């Protein structure tokens, strides 16, 4: 940074946002200057997404002020956002989605420049992306959609981006693509752009950020240059006990009989944690969905189901948005204690309060609507829903998406203890680190299993090796 600091692009002064009694943001003062790359971290519900929404004008502050150096609103100040939940129009093509954000594109023959612009942006950030500008978004995988959204945020769109806010942009990306994004962010900031980078993956944050800001319960509790933080210090500041390295499970454990075997080759034994890995969008989710659908019925339901599902794509596969937290948790265990087909509300309430405590859902009352929870806490609700049932097999479709590091550690140990009690887990994760915690890993490539790894073979290198086409094969 030079001595003559340039004017901040956006300045927040004592910004507050309250949702009823919830103090989502409780007085945040922050200035972002050209060239800044701020890593924003914090536990689930710390207020990160709320901060993003305040800056880009999605919600207005309860108190305090937000000022831009150019114009009155985020758009005219060149502030762009990539939101935590995907926000493209799925019925439009990639190029048409750019048009939505690019108001100047109109008139006869607007398509050609639109195509060129999005293609250039994609090429720059994600070389070899393989995305055609004329495909409809709903035919793309989640990872590809995320890439398109990021590309649109960085595209010139007539005005040039000055500040890009990325709210958990890598949660659906695999390591390789996430690396490309990080490289681009670094380039962008070096050229004088500013970025706010929100992630629960501290490695990434350290990698990309020049400055790190820690939010806790709506307040900034630590703010400093990235190199001044250690991983432990950061985790401490976020308010969680430093995570001890989860030791990889030895091959000593003995598992029960085989309980899952699919025609595709996926197998699992009682008490085993089986990981599904590989690049995003190579058929893992489909394999899990198929497994779940084949072992459960759309016609019958039983008190003790065979499998339960933990969704990663909350909006699409998990949350029942009109309901309270309590009803969202109890939907899978309604038959427990029910008599004459009527719900036993006691069983229900007990399960909800039990799991709220065990898994640490941040809410005062489980009768609050589920949508009042932050993204990560909604994910915990889905965990609670699955684990509250007695099903011996738990199928998890990237369930740690957007879950903070402290909660993750809790979840890992909970998985371990549930597995020790004889439950079987099938766990698809976009993070290789997580796959390494499993007892057995199946790596997917192009919709088929390309490798089965066990014990000491489960390493990042081996997984990556199996994920990519062999270069030398010819």
């Amino acid at each position, binding site marked *: 940074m030079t001595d003559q600091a340039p004017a901040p692009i956006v300045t927040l002064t004592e910004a507050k946002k309250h949702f009823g009694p919830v103090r989502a943001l409780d007085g945040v003062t922050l200035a972002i200057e050209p060239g800044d790359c701020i890593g924003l971290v914090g536990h689930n519900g710390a207020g990160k997404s709320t901060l993003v929404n305040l800056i880009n004008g999605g919600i207005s502050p309860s108190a305090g002020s937000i000022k831009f150096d150019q114009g009155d609103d985020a758009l005219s100040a060149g502030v762009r956002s990539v939101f935590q939940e995907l926000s493209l129009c799925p019925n439009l093509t990639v190029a048409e989605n750019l048009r939505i954000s690019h108001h100047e594109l109109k008139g006869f023959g607007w398509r050609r420049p639109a195509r060129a612009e999005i293609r250039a942006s994609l090429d720059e950030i994600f070389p070899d992306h393989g995305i055609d500008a004329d495909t409809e978004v709903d035919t793309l995988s989640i990872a590809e959609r995320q890439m398109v959204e990021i590309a649109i945020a960085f595209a010139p769109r007539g005005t040039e981006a000055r500040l890009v806010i990325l709210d958990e942009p890598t949660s659906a990306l695999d390591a390789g693509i996430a690396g490309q994004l990080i490289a681009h962010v670094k380039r962008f900031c070096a050229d004088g752009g500013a970025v706010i980078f929100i992630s629960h993956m501290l490695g990434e944050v350290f990698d990309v950020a020049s400055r790190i800001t820690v939010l806790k319960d709506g307040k900034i509790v630590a703010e400093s240059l990235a190199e001044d933080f250690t991983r432990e210090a950061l985790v401490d500041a976020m308010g969680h006990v430093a995570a001890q390295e989860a030791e990889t499970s030895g091959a000593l454990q003995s598992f029960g009989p085989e309980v899952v075997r699919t025609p595709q080759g996926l197998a699992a034994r009682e008490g085993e944690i089986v990981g599904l890995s590989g690049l995003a969008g190579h058929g893992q989710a489909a394999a899990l*969905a198929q497994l*779940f*659908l084949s072992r*459960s*019925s*759309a*016609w*019958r*339901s039983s008190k003790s*189901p065979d499998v*339960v*599902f933990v*969704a990663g794509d909350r909006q*699409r*596969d*998990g*949350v*029942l*948005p*009109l*309901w309270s937290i309590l*009803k969202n948790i109890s*939907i*899978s265990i*309604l*038959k427990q204690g*029910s008599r004459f*087909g*009527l*719900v036993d509300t006691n069983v229900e309430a007990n399960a909800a309060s039990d799991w709220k405590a065990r898994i640490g859902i941040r809410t005062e009352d489980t009768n609050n609507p589920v949508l009042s929870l932050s993204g990560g806490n909604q994910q915990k609700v889905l965990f609670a*829903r699955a684990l509250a*049932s007695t099903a011996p097999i738990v199928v998890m479709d990237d369930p740690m998406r957007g879950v903070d590091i402290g909660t993750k550690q809790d979840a890992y140990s909970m998985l371990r203890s549930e597995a020790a009690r004889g439950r079987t887990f099938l766990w698809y994760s976009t993070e290789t680190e997580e796959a390494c915690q499993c007892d057995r890993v199946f790596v997917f490539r192009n919709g088929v299993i390309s490798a089965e790894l066990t014990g000491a073979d489960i390493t990042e290198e081996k997984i990556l090796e199996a994920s990519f086409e062999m270069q030398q094969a010819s």
Partner: protein
Amino acid sequence: MTLLAKPWIWAWGAAALTFALTIGLTSGRGAGELAYAALSFGAFAAIVGLGQMLVITLGPGNVDLSIPATMTLAATLALKAMGSMPGTALLGLAIALAVGFGAGLTNYLLILLLRLPPIIATLAASLIYQSLAIWSNRGLRIKPPEALADFATGRFFGVPNVAWVGLGLAVLVWIALERSVWGRWLLATGQNMRAARLAGVPVERVRASTYLAVSVFAGLAGYLLASFSGGAALNMGAEYLLMSIAVVVIGGTSIAGGNSNVPGVWGAALFMFLVISMLNSYGAAAGLKNVLTGAIVIAIVIAASTRKGRK
């Protein structure tokens, strides 16, 4: 202000207001008669409305447009089978319910197997039911057995028997929705069918039972209406197409699914009868009557929804 936040209060308020306005015309005379008529005729709308509500709760795009045809077919076949003979009332009821069951099953199978949008599937099927009704009886009007007609037009504790049936059904539906496992499943399916399926809800069973329920209710309504008005007619259900949807939405059920409202259906059913009676009593011409009905319906929806938003 919690009462004002209840979505059904608006339908009941509107019903009370129209009642008062009508009776105001005669300075109180005829209040009993009007209430009795409203309960009688409101019952038919309420019965089909309860069924339609269950379907609408299943989520966007779910609606049963075959209600009128199912009513007609059930009534036609039931009255033909009874042939005005004494002691056949239960046989007729069984036939009407069976016809409803069959129609519901057909609708559901069209939706499931041919993956037709429900709005189109039920519309197309209803044309077939209508043809069946024409073919089976060619519009001949057969009188219900005497005892059945007496029951349908009779009263118990001053309340029409058909209204008792409608009230009983409403209580049943309320329990099913608010207290039963099936109701939770239905509400979950209505919010997000895919998420519900992945949470272990037997969504197809829920959908099937819902489409069966609405048709069975329609069959029952047809049977009662034919007994009430002295025989089945080929066009007897026609007005219950829009009516069944109107009472559901005026009653405060969310059209987006996953949220339903039993008391509102009854309130709206009474209101829909009373508003026409009021406009008739004030001598409104057909055009004015329609314009006012439409305007009042929209006003209620606006009142109910802005209240909810402000909460």
